């Protein structure tokens, strides 16, 4: 009678488990590297809380160059991870990738007085990795959730900056941040969220909104809102609306 277990089965399964282990080890190395670049960038970016806007021209180029190393690592990750089922391993990198996305979002927002927000597609161009993929295409990409989570985290950072910019005497930046955060908050309310991590993080946006509103309120109470809010007309208007809400 045939044996209970096919003799070739053991080796077949063993080699698959070993392959899986190797893949994970390699991924961990790349993800570690990404993590280091991201932490460094985050560290640099934390200086915005003590750097007046006039000094940005010296700070931001440093951020930019460290973002470049992140992008390089992400493309390494993308090349490696695309050989395997994306969702089998994406838990390994989704957090550092979110953090990386948020540094890029924050950097671009700060780098121009018009405060551009990178959309998912421009972000994917920035990293030159694809966005959401059709089901028949299994490769590395940036997911919708990752983008949204990254957005939540820059909202947090900016709400802190709103306070600190006032301390640094840059009241118009606080007003600009307030407009931006309120717009994003309205945007997030368009989403239908489930009880998951995204929902939990999005729920925290209201505290950021409250924080910046308080700052703007303090400013308007004391007549410290810059007239025409340093070029951004709508910002002043937003501050005017503030009281009735």
């Amino acid at each position, binding site marked *: 009678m045939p*044996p209970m277990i096919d003799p070739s089965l053991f080796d077949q399964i063993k080699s698959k488990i070993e392959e899986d282990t190797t893949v994970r080890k390699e991924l961990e190395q790349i993800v570690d590297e990404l993590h280091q670049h991201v932490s460094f960038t985050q560290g640099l970016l934390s200086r915005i809380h003590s750097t007046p806007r006039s000094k940005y021209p010296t700070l931001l180029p440093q951020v930019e160059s460290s973002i470049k190393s992140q992008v390089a690592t992400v493309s390494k990750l993308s090349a490696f991870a695309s050989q395997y089922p994306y969702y089998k391993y994406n838990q390994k990198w989704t957090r550092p990738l979110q953090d990386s996305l948020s540094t890029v979002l924050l950097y671009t927002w700060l780098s121009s007085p018009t405060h551009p927000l990178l959309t998912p597609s421009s972000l994917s161009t920035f990293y030159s990795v694809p966005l959401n993929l059709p*089901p028949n295409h299994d490769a590395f990409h940036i997911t919708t959730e990752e983008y949204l989570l990254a957005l939540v985290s820059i909202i947090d950072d900016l709400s802190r900056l709103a306070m600190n910019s006032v301390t640094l005497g840059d009241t118009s930046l606080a007003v600009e941040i307030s407009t931006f955060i309120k717009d994003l908050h309205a945007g997030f309310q368009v989403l*239908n969220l489930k009880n998951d991590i995204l929902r939990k993080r999005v729920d925290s946006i209201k505290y950021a909104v409250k924080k910046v509103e308080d700052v703007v309120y303090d400013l308007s109470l004391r007549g410290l809102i810059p007239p025409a809010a340093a070029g951004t007309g709508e910002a002043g208007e937003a501050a005017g609306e503030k009281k009735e809400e």
Partner: protein
Amino acid sequence: MSGFKRDWNGNAKKRDGPKPPPKKVVQNQYTPMFETLRDELDQHHDRRERIIKASRDITALSKKIIFALQRVRKIDKELPKNIQAEVDTRLADISKLLATIAPEIQGINRYRYARSLMCLEELVEALTFLHYLKTQTLITPEQLTPIMDDLVRKAITPPEDVPMTDVNEPAATSPEKPEEKEIPKVSLTQDDYLYGVFDLTGEMMRFATTSTALTGTMAGGGAPGDEEPRTIVEDMHELGSFFEMLPVGPGKRFQWEKKLEVTRQSVQKVERLGYDRTIRGSERPKGWIPDLSGGDQPEEE
């Protein structure tokens, strides 16, 4: 739409001025982007929901198959008719459910929803157990693939156009209407297989216990001509060593260890049965049948 106020007489009050416009969601430059993102998220959530629902049903059906199989008393190519019939109906139901979710779990989505597809583990358990009871061997992943493909295919292509054989039927309705469309497959991951087999050891233990208690013989043995018929005790030992020798799967170390521990216990329970049989089995008079009246085992039909 009960939007009017009443005066103190209870009559509907006239609005002063025009009807205010319906409350609009705040629109700003980012709204369109968020709307796109919302649609993507909605699709994902809906798909996940559908998968989870089907998965829950498939799990329940697989469990019912396993329960039915636990009423089998010996390893044999043919299952008892009534049990085979029950297994077949359950499998047909599973087949329908699999076919509904099959298109949703193709390609990249297979692993995306892996955690919502725990039913596949349960199904593997049922199928491996069925295979063991018929052949006394462990089914391989390669043998499982065609079975899974079959299950999905059965529900997608309706069973060989039965009404078409009707003589009165005009031949106009061609039986081969859909050109062999690409039938989506439900693939099993290595984890589905391994964790299903882990659970198989528990079922084998249960089967060994009941069948030994009720028939007085250790299940297994194969053809009567075999010089050394293999029993389920040996099979359990082999499965036990199989798992002990495998490297621990990365990523799920905790779950793996837990399952392995349960398997160890099952192996030991069955080997205890083997010991009891050897040492006391001969003391039983021929034709001895244990008292079943107090047992919670289902009656054999």
